[in-house]
């Protein structure tokens, strides 16, 4: 029977095109847009001390890899508090920050950065290999095109922060 006699085949073909279009759409996801969404979740699933104010200052420390993607978190509410984004060059003081994302460009000075934050409830984030073992609380990486993360529970608790059980369950590695 000819193709013209089977209109249904055309519909099936068009449905196939729809699936291809959906795949193309899923492929268009920049790395740092997805990482910005992870940062939001890290903030949301952290238990902050009661003394923390109503605004959480998220500081990007070093050369910002997010570009404008992280700006989408500006004014969003997580854990009952409003997020404000700041960019700090390496070497700038971080005294007003509640969350510090240590960019790859600032990893050389990580020990000094962590020392300056010691004893304060500041959530430290990164996306550099080995950063969790060097003391950041949540470290993202890419595995098979997907974002994964590892958690340093010891560092978080030392700073007076509690990471939710959900974060710990989904982390690829937890340092206790």
């Amino acid at each position, binding site marked *: 029977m000819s193709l013209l006699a089977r*209109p*249904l085949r*055309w*519909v099936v073909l*068009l*449905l196939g*095109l*729809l699936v*291809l*279009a*959906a795949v193309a*759409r*899923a492929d*268009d*996801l*920049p*790395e*740092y*847009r*997805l990482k*910005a*969404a*992870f940062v*939001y*979740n890290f903030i*949301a699933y*952290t*238990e902050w001390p009661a003394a923390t104010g109503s*605004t959480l200052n998220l500081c990007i420390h*070093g*050369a910002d*890899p*997010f*570009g*404008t*993607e992280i700006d*989408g978190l*500006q*004014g*969003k*509410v*997580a*854990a*009952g508090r*409003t997020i*404000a*984004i*700041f*960019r*700090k060059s390496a070497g*700038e003081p971080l005294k007003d920050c509640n969350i510090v994302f240590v960019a790859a460009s600032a990893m050389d000075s990580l020990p000094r950065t962590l020392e300056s934050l010691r004893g304060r409830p500041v959530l430290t984030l990164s996306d550099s290999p080995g950063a969790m073992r060097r003391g950041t609380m949540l470290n993202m990486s*890419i595995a*098979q*095109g*997907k*974002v994964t993360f590892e958690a340093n529970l010891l560092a978080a608790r030392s700073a007076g922060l509690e990471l*939710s059980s*959900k*974060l710990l369950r*989904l982390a690829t590695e937890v340092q206790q």
Partner: protein
Amino acid sequence: MPRHHASDHRAVDRLCAWRRAVHCGLLVLGLGLSASAYPITLPQLLRMPLEQLLRLEISVPGASPGLRRSTLTAPFEATEGGRGP
């Protein structure tokens, strides 16, 4: 029924089926094209559970929207509801 009338009926039925199929196909194609025109946005990502984010694949590993280094910027006003444990 004369033979040529039955043949006409079949022709009309085929034409109707074709029209339905074309309409349906155009609708599906339109939906598909509109979906592909809009990549996944940050607000959409923020509504997804963490488990779902872990399953998403990035487009080009290591791609960055552009390095930017700047000094302290003023925070915006809070306007939206959010998520918490």
